[in-house]
């Protein structure tokens, strides 16, 4: 398949840009932050996204979705990266929808996919327990109890955790932390007895939470993927999330770069625009090149998710590794090349730096993914 967008995907991109510039520009995030919005996103916007077919971008038409595939989802994530749009798109429309589509039983699909498509639900994925990403390090317990299991443990860095109606959680039904086998995934009602949530206010003003589980009951029917072999399902879901984040990072980095390139043509010192200084030109040209590489790996990962889901895990890691690293560079160069104004809260560039920091950390930073690729390649 050629490594370019189809005409349909190009059109989606164009309409997304128009919509987001109007309905969810960077100032919308600023407003959510300054008003300390309880939800951390606009429910009205989320509903509009449903009307556009975005919340159900990965949901089959039979369930009310627009079924545009992962490239389509990535196109939207990239555009939302450009505007720093806060919404449950990643948690619900990418992560939960993938979990349900690929690894859940029919009953769960019937129940939840139409709700995702209608933006009637928010769902979250709870994986990490420590500072750094590491699904195999899952220690949270799922102890057999009658027909079901009792979940106990703590999760952190759960995107949309405090507003989610349902949480997909990784817990250990066997084995020990550090091992891939023995992990299982469960779909848990966020209001179930024993679930307590703390919203964590993050540097990017986007939603995240710590979620504690104290003897929370689930049944075997609540499992997603195979009991004890949830790790393979989890890797599939994470591949989608990582590719989605890579796309978002790509969009955020591109936008910061554009703002910087514009500034280079406008700001004057020593009687010239600063963009005429070769020291800055070369750094800008280097960054441009790196951003082109990010576009390629991101599209490749998304195409692989659509074309060969089982094989996409490695290119998703490639995309996350490259996008995370380059986006950080883009945000750092952006602030530096803006000089003093880049340090002001009033100017948007700082908001990009903040979001990029968070998105590159989520589901594994560059080092995590480069290491993962090295292991897969046998060194």
């Amino acid at each position, binding site marked *: 398949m050629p490594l370019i967008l189809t005409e349909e995907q190009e059109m989606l991109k164009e309409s997304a840009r128009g919509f987001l510039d109007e309905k969810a520009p960077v100032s919308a995030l600023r407003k959510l932050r300054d008003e300390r919005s309880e939800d951390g996103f606009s429910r009205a916007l989320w509903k509009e996204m449903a009307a556009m077919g975005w919340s159900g971008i990965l949901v089959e038409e039979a369930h009310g979705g627009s079924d545009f595939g992962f490239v389509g989802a990535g196109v939207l994530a990239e555009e939302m990266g450009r505007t720093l749009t806060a919404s449950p798109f990643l948690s619900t429309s990418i992560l939960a929808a993938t979990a349900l589509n690929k690894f859940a039983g029919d009953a769960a699909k019937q129940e939840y996919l139409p709700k995702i498509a209608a933006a009637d639900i928010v769902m979250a994925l709870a994986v990490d327990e420590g500072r750094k990403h590491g699904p195999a390090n899952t220690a949270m317990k799922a102890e057999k109890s009658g027909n079901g299991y009792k979940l106990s443990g703590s999760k952190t860095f759960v995107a949309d955790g405090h507003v989610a109606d349902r949480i997909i959680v990784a817990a250990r039904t066997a084995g020990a932390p550090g091992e891939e086998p023995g992990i299982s995934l469960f779909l848990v009602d966020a209001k179930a007895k024993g679930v307590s949530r703390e919203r964590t206010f993050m540097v990017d003003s986007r939603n995240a939470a710590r979620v504690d589980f104290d003897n929370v009951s689930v049944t075997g029917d609540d499992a997603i993927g195979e009991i004890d072999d949830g790790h393979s399902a989890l890797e599939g879901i994470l591949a989608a999330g990582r590719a989605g984040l890579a796309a978002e990072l790509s969009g955020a980095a591109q936008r910061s770069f554009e703002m910087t390139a514009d500034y280079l043509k406008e700001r004057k010192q020593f009687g010239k625009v600063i963009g005429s200084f070769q020291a800055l030109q*070369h750094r800008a*040209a280097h960054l441009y090149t790196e951003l*082109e*590489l990010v576009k390629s*790996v991101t599209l490749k990962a998304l195409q692989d998710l659509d074309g060969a889901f089982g094989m996409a895990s490695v290119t998703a890691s490639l995309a996350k590794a490259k996008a995370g690293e380059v986006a950080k560079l883009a945000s750092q160069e952006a602030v530096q090349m803006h000089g003093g104004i880049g340090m002001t809260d009033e100017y948007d560039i700082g908001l990009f730096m903040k979001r990029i920091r968070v998105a590159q950390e989520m589901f594994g930073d560059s080092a995590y993914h480069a290491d993962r690729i090295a292991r897969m390649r046998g*060194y």
Partner: protein
Amino acid sequence: MSDIEAFRNDVRDWLDANCPKEMRDGAGGEENICWGGRNWKFRSDAQKLWLERMAQKGWTVPAWPKEYGGGGLEKEEVKVLKAEMRKMKMRSPLESFGIWMLGPALLKYGTHEQKAKFLPPIARGEIRWCQGYSEPNAGSDLASLQCKCEDKGDHWLVNGQKIWTSYADESDWIFALVRTDPKAAKHDGISFILIDMATKGVSTKPIKLISGKSPFCETFFDDVVVPKEHGGGVNAIVGTINRGWDVAKYLLTHEREMIGAGGGGLLGGRGIGEVAANYVGVDERGRLCDPMLRAKVAQAEVDGWAFLLTMERLKDEAKAGQGMGAKSSMLKYYGTEFNKRRFELFMDASGADGLEWEGARSEDGKLAKGWLRTKANSIEGGTSEVQLNIISKRILELPDA
């Protein structure tokens, strides 16, 4: 079955039936390339046979029109052909400056007569070309070149010197930039001329490289008489007189794309991680024994892979039959810098053994020489700094200093 899949099957069958087994070892490297030319000595019968069969099919230059010795294939088909050759680890039947550089320039700027005379011998590997651009005082600032070309009525008279002319001593013809109007502004008085190296007054003198070999030369033109026409209706000058800079720049975009692609390196050659594991070994968990090296290698492999995908994407984006313009500077810049990084890592991993310069154990310093040769990648075809200047100006539209 789609047309392209049917094509793939045909290609696979034909390649399998026609490629000699000696040409299926995936060997790259300068010593294994078939460059062709009047004085070419085939390294083996297999190399000769492989060239003849592929040339017959038009597949030494699959994208060129059939009437000029090419295969007349569509972009997608070329991709399939290359992919199948790669899968079967087939060597390229022919590489040359004619294929990479002059051919694309003639296809765009040449007359039908020029194409008909010069392209088929390139496709068949009969004539080998070299590139006469750089001069002692015109490197990055190429447009300041001074090699003089005077109009003498029925012929041109060329006087001057070129430098760093790769393989000039082994080439049959040279495409050169010469000054036809010394009074015009520097970009406006340049012409793009084709000269037979066997002409009286053309001489070459090899220059030895730090990597030991001497594949490039100084090239001198002393009262060289170049006929205005190389045979009936075949103009010696490509494009318009005094507008040679347009041809020169267009050719450079192809050269840069090609040099950048060399930086991919991962396709034919072995991965950096694989090589490093072989040199320094792995621990009980299967990881490179040297953790600092491992981290650098892993990051380099991420970047290398991302670069390969970017070449693929840019080719897919470019319109059929057209180059990628200023974006070739991006590939040139990243690909060559990456290739240098790759060889630095090979050297790091190989330690003292990689420093041997002579003897069978090191294949006469193969790695060390390869490492040194990569240092030229970010100089030849325009330095990295020049590529960054081009990206700044042409793509980012930043103003001149």
